[in-house]
């Protein structure tokens, strides 16, 4: 009798605990979280089937606004995905590499080195840290990152392990995040994204100050990295070396260099010496600005980021180099994945037309994030155009 009572009681408690954990977990993962393009992109990465990405792109906004996965697949045959978040931190690089190795084993990992060039303390910035780690599913790598990152310790590890502590008040923002939430459900249900993490802003840069890109290709000025960033870079390189991670390519995406960012450009020059020390390849595309024939006002939406025209140009330039110099041999995709990527290509074309039309109309700057709403608008636009 007593045993039966204990068993019933245990089952009831377990049921309550389990249901509570499931509901709270669901709320944390889907409803009460910070929604932005970073979240959708990272979620998109994790829902990609393993062994389907040939080239993984690590870095900051330069990567997801500068390289178009659908275009690399269509024109150069290899798949890629920007495992990148806005203002990504140097301290997250090791975790990012380990996450990529855990999930995809790509042929090549391209790393944009922006995270090491800061003069300000990006490592301590909560938004920069959270843009990445909040969107990584809880696993051993994330646990390690949370335990070992000083800034996270300072901010409170619990809120990183269980983001609901931080974001439970998001209920107050609804219905605003609703569109993102629906998109998340849709892409999870679909099992893949259409733009594969790519995002552009429909706008043209208006250059209002002196720029240094014409002299950049021959400017060998070097400035030291901030000590903490140099240390972070060396730690990262040593980690890769110690773990025999050789499939790495370090790059610096081309920016429109102005007085304010000139020093950052010179630090980008210095990075080469450090990376060379460890035997890895570094390509500084800032120095290829003229070779790519990049007109800032035509190909950029602000000083640091390409618009869709610039992204196409840069994608082609990088892809050619990757296929020729690094001999990227695309994985043979099965029918299912081939169909997915073909759909991505088809959608990208429609997306390009939509963005192109938007920009030609001279409308105000607008972020074009792959939401359900945007997908609908893009498809409607394509339909109207063909009819």
């Amino acid at each position, binding site marked *: 009798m007593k045993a039966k009572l204990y068993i019933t009681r245990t089952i*009831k408690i377990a049921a309550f605990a389990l249901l*509570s954990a499931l509901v709270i977990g669901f709320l944390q993962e889907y409803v009460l979280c910070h929604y932005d393009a970073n979240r959708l992109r990272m979620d998109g990465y994790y829902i990609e089937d393993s062994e389907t990405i040939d080239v993984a792109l690590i870095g900051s906004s330069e990567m997801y606004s500068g390289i178009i996965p659908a275009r690399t697949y269509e024109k150069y045959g290899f798949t890629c995905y920007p495992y990148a978040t806005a203002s990504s931190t140097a301290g997250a690089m090791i975790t990012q590499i380990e996450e990529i190795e855990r999930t995809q084993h790509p042929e090549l990992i391209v790393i944009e080195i922006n995270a090491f060039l800061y003069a300000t303390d990006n490592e301590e910035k909560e938004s920069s840290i959270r843009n990445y780690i909040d969107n990584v599913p809880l696993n051993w790598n994330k646990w390690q990152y949370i335990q070992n990152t000083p800034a996270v310790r300072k901010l409170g590890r619990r809120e990183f392990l269980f983001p609901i502590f931080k974001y*439970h*008040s998001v209920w107050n923002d609804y219905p605003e995040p609703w569109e993102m939430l629906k998109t998340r459900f849709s892409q999870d249900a679909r099992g893949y994204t259409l733009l594969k993490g790519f995002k552009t802003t429909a706008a043209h840069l208006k250059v209002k100050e002196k720029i240094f890109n014409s002299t950049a290709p021959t400017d060998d000025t070097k400035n030291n990295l901030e000590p903490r960033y140099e240390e972070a870079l060396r730690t990262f390189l040593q980690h890769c070396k110690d773990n025999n991670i050789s499939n790495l390519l370090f790059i610096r995406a081309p920016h429109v260099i102005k007085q304010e960012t000139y020093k950052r450009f010179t630090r980008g020059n210095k990075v080469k010496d450090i990376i060379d020390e460890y035997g890895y390849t570094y390509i500084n595309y800032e120095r290829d600005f003229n070779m790519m024939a990049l007109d800032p006002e035509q190909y950029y939406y602000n000083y640091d980021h390409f618009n869709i025209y610039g992204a196409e140009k840069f994608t082609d330039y990088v892809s050619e180099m990757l296929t020729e110099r690094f001999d990227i041999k695309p994985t043979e995709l099965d029918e299912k994945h081939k169909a997915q990527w073909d759909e991505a290509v088809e959608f990208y074309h429609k997306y390009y037309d939509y963005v192109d039309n938007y920009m030609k109309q001279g409308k105000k700057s607008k972020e074009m994030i792959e939401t359900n709403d945007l997908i609908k608008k893009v498809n409607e636009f394509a339909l109207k155009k063909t009819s």
Partner: protein
Amino acid sequence: MSYSTINFILFVLGTVLVYFLIPKKARWTVLLAASVVFYIISGLKFAFYILFTAASTYLIALWVDKLSQNSKQVLKKNKAEWSRDDKKNYKNKVKIQKRLVMSLALVANFGILAFLKYYNSFAGGANDLFANFGWQLSMPTLKLLMPLGISFYTFQSMGYIVDVYREKVQAQKNPLKLLLFVSFFPQVIQGPISMYDQLAKQLYEGHDFDFTRFKYGCELIMWGFFKKLVIADRAAIAITAVTGSYNKYNGTTLTFTILLYALQLYADFSGGIDISRGVAQIFGINMIDNFKRPYFSKDINEYWRRWHISLGAWMKEYIFYPVAMSNAFITASKKMKNTRFGKTAAGAHIAKVLPTSVASLIVFLVVGIWHGDSWKFVAFGAWNGVIIMVSILLEPVFDIIKEKLHIKKGNVPFMLFQMFRTFLIVLVGYVFDVAPSFKQAMRTFWLFFTNQSFSKGYTQISDLGLGKKDYLVILLGAVVILIASLIQENTKDGLTIREKLDKRPFVLRFAALFVLLISIVVFGIYGSGYDAAAFVYAQF
């Protein structure tokens, strides 16, 4: 470590686990260790104060107890030889000795409390006075911080010493056990202030694990969290905004703020007490309830029997009775009775209730002063004291009016009127709490009547850091509390809501607790997105 944090929950879980794992006899040591650790985590630098109180209470109580025991032996020994007068004289002598010894503890401990609470105000006032007289004197102001729960453990300890003095309880011989009574962690921050004979035995005897008790304790903790995190801390955001720039707001906003404060204070304080009682209940310890739905009170006297019950009980036991039953008061009452006025009906009534009413006024002045070192708190105490005093003195007049109006006992509309009237009186008292100073409190009363503008008030209320959805959560939370209170108030079987819920089908119980838990997780004010408010009564 605040009670409304995850750390506290983990701390309690750890303590519960160890408590029930070790032999029954030694279980009190787990509570002691947990209480010491809790106090140290909450502020090591303040540990000296509580240790001093515990040590002085322990030693003085032993001394007083020894004097009592010795006197009993002496009286027994000289029973045959001593005359009645000898015995009386001896008893008086011992009583004076005991009083003197007891006073050492009272003066030292209340002295520390008073010094920490009032010294800087006193120094400021004295310096102003010196300046007015043109004297070149100055009292330094000091950086004084109030140790955690000092009021509560001081009151509890001093109550114990008085009980030993009155020979109501025997002095505790084990200093560690006394330290546990003084520092028991679920109650050290904000009470309830327990009497030694009610709490001590429960602390020292080991309790077996009881699932029902564990369940009820957890439910009470959850209910406390709901009140504290969902309602009180949310309302605190708006109230803090108002008190931060008090002059900015019109009468409508201030009226709204006072109403919101009534809800916040109740949810905060009673929520905290529910957490404390829930934790204690898991260990098998029943602490007294500090609240009995105070806003349902039909008069202010009843309100104070339902609000902060343990403080009221303490005041009654250790201040009200000693004052009301003192020779001076009884003599004054008798003298009045013998005057010409005392021979009239009104005079006889006044003479009869004079000690009670004046003692009430004194008690409330003490309560007011205890709340803080500002004239506004004195006014808060005086307001309550005077209302009680007048209500006692005019009781026959009210009875006559009720009779003339044919209002019978149990008349529902009249009861509702009484509740509303009492609530208004309570709200007036709250104005002194919320306003930054006595002068501002007076200005608030003026604005209530002269500066009401709903449109301006609406704009101001919308800009207090809370959105419409937050106000909706507060409103729904208040409705939930109201429903729970109505059920509890009208219960005929004497069962608590938890006991009633236990009799319902499993699915209903499951759903109720689940909704409560999710409400706390989603709507609670916690985490770095919010700056959670400290418990209001922890500051006193």
